[in-house]
C-alpha cells in the first residue's frame, strides 16, 4: 500500500523540545516507509487555520499539530473536513467525529525526577526555571515539587518564569541568580538552565528530552516524553479507517511508554542506593496504579 499521507503544523520551530518529540516520532515513521510526512513549522496563530486547511485539501489522511490558542479555528477546520483525521495537542476534549487530542502528560516521570532532586540536594534548595506558567508547564513543575517534597519535606523551591520560550541566555541568567541563592538542583524546563548548572557545578534535572550526553556531570535525571505510542496508535486507527475523536493523553503516561524516567547513565553510581530504591518503588506503584500523581495545573509559586 502507498504510505499514508501525514502532515504536521507546528507553531514553533522543530527544535523546541515539545514539538521535537512529535517531529521525531513522525520522522521515524517516515523512515520506516510507513508514512509520507510533510510539515510546516513556526506557523503563526493567524496562519494556523489556513495551513491546516491546505493540508486537508491536499488529501492528507492525518493532520497533527498543537492548537493551544487556535482551538476554535482548528475545530472549525475539522468540521469542514470530516474525512480527514486530526490529532492535536490540546487541553480540551476531543470533538466528534474526527478531532482527537493529546498532551504531554509526563507528570509521572516528573514526580520521579522530583524525588531524585529532593534526594540529591545538599542545601535543600531547588530551583525551577520555566518559560510561561501555562498548564503544560505547571503540571510538570507541580508534580516535580510534590516528588521532591516526598523525599525531602524541608526542601524549599524557587520558581522563575522568563517570559519567553526561546531565550537561553535569559534562562541561564535566571538559573545563575538561583544558584547565587544557594540552589543546588535545577529543574531545566528551558534550554539554558543546564548550561548554568554545568558552569557553576550544580545539578540539573532534564525535561521532555534526555540531554545527559551533553551535560554528563550535570544532568542527573530526566523525565522523558515519547510521542511514538501516540503516533503509532493514531496511525493504526487511520489505517484501519477506525479513527474517531478520542483523548490520546494516556499514551503519554508511563504505562504506555509515553513517559519515562531517563536512564541514570553517568549518575548511576552517584545517586544513593536507597534513593534509587525509593524511586524504583514509586515507579512500580505508578505503573500498577497504586499511586496516582495528581495533575495540578495551577501556577507553581516560590516557597516563602
Amino acid at each position, binding site marked *: 500500500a502507498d504510505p499514508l499521507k501525514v502532515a504536521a503544523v507546528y507553531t514553533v520551530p522543530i527544535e523546541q523540545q515539545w514539538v521535537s518529540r512529535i517531529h521525531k516520532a513522525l520522522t521515524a515513521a517516515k523512515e520506516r516507509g510507513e508514512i509520507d510526512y*510533510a510539515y510546516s513549522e513556526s506557523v503563526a*496563530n*493567524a496562519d494556523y487555520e489556513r*495551513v491546516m486547511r491546505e493540508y486537508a485539501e491536499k488529501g492528507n489522511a492525518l493532520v497533527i499539530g498543537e492548537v493551544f490558542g*487556535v482551538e476554535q*479555528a482548528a475545530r472549525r477546520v475539522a468540521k469542514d473536513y470530516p474525512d480527514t483525521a486530526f490529532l492535536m495537542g490540546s487541553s480540551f476534549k476531543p470533538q466528534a467525529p474526527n478531532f482527537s487530542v493529546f498532551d504531554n502528560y509526563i507528570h509521572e516521570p516528573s514526580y520521579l525526577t522530583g524525588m531524585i532532586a529532593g534526594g540529591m540536594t545538599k542545601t535543600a534548595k531547588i530551583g525551577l526555571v520555566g518559560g510561561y506558567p501555562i498548564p503544560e508547564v505547571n503540571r510538570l513543575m507541580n508534580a516535580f515539587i510534590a516528588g521532591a517534597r516526598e523525599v525531602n519535606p524541608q526542601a524549599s523551591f524557587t520558581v522563575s518564569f522568563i517570559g519567553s520560550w526561546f531565550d537561553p541566555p535569559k534562562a541561564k541568567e535566571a538559573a545563575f541568580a538561583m544558584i547565587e541563592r544557594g540552589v543546588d538542583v535545577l529543574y531545566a524546563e528551558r534550554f539554558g538552565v543546564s548550561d548554568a548548572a554545568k558552569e557553576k557545578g550544580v545539578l540539573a534535572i532534564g525535561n521532555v528530552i534526555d540531554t545527559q550526553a551533553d551535560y554528563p556531570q550535570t544532568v542527573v535525571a530526566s523525565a522523558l516524553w515519547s510521542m511514538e505510542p501516540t503516533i503509532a496508535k493514531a496511525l493504526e486507527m487511520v489505517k484501519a479507517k477506525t479513527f474517531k475523536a478520542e483523548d490520546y493523553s494516556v499514551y503519554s503516561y508511563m504505562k504506555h511508554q509515553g513517559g519515562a524516567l531517563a536512564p541514570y547513565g553517568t549518575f548511576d553510581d552517584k545517586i544513593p542506593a536507597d534513593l534509587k530504591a525509593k524511586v524504583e518503588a514509586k515507579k512500580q506503584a505508578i505503573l500498577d496504579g497504586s499511586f496516582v500523581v495528581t495533575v495540578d495545573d495551577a501556577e507553581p509559586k516560590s516557597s516563602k
Partner: protein
Amino acid sequence: MRLERRESVPAWASVAAPLAAVAAALILCALLVAASGAPVLKAFATLFTGGFGSRFAIGETLTRATPLILTGLAAAVAFRAKLWNIGAEGQLYLGALAAVALGSGPLALPAWALLPVVMLGAALAGGLALLGPALLKTRFGVDEVVTTLLLNFIVLLFVSMMLEGPMKDPMAMGWPQSAAMLPEAELPRLVARSRIHAGLLIAVALAGLVWLLKSRTIWGFEMRALGANPRAAAFAGVPVGKVVLRVALLSGGLAGLAGACEVAGRAGYLTLDMSPGYGYSGIVIAMLAQLNPLGVIAAAVMVAGVFVGADAMSRAVGVPNYIADVLVAVSLLCMLTAMLFTRYRLRRG
C-alpha cells in the same frame, strides 16, 4: 551618478516599476529556492496560484489583508502628520483586549448595539495607547519613535498579565487566553468555508473615510500642514497640540480596530500570539502606498498575497517556510526602490 527628481511621473514608469520590482524579487528568491534544491519554476507557479489562484487563496489573502489595511491606515495617518508611530502592534493588542473585555459578556446591550460598542471601545483603547506618547512628545519633546516602540513591549506584558490574571477564561483549562466573544459581538463571515469576515468591509470603508478626511476636510488640511511644516502650520494658526492629539487618537484607534476585527472576525478570543507583527507590517504598507489611504488597500492586498502565496509555495515544493517572509521582505525593498525611480532618474554628475 546622482538622482534627479523628475518633473512628472511618466506613465510607463508607474506600470513598469512594480513589474520590475516583482521580477527582481522573484529572481533573488529563485536563488534561495534553488539553493535548497527545489524546482524553481514549479515554485513560482504555486506562488501565484497560492496567493491569488483560487477561491481559497483569494479568501486567505483578503483575510490577511484586513488587519494590514487597518494598521497601514494607522501608520499612514500618523506619518502624514509626522507622528512616527511605531507602536501599532501594541495599540492593536490593546484594541483587541478592549474588544474581548466588552464583547465577551459584561455588557447587557441589545444585539444590534453590542458590536458598535465593542468596535468603538477598541478604537478608543488603541487611541489612548498612542495618546500617551503623543502627549509626551508635545509636552516634553520625548521622541515618539522610542516611546511607541517601548510601549509595544509594555502592552504585550500587560495583555499577558490580563490573560493570566483577571481576564483569563476560566473555561480555557488554564491557558492564558481571554473568554470568547459573544456570537452577537462577532463580525459575520462573508463567504462560506472561508475566513473572509465583515472586518474587510470595515477596513475598506475606513480607507475611504480616511481619504476623505485627509484630502477634503479642514482636519485633514491641518494634519497635512502640520506634517509638512509644523512651524508654518503653527504660525498660520493651526492648533498644533490639538491636531497631534487628534492624529494620535485616529491612528491608534485604527490600529485598535485592527485588533478588534481580528478577535471579532477571525480568532474569536484573544491570545498573546494573535498578531504576527501586523503593527510593524502596517508601516511598510503605508510607505508602499506613499501614505495614500486608498493605496493602502492595494498595498495590503499585495503584501498579504505575496505572503500567502509564498507560504503555500514553501509547502508545495518543500522548502523551509521561512521563505515566505524572505520573499515579502525582498519584494518590499525592491518595490520601494522601483517606486523611487518613478520619481527620480539617474543622472551623471
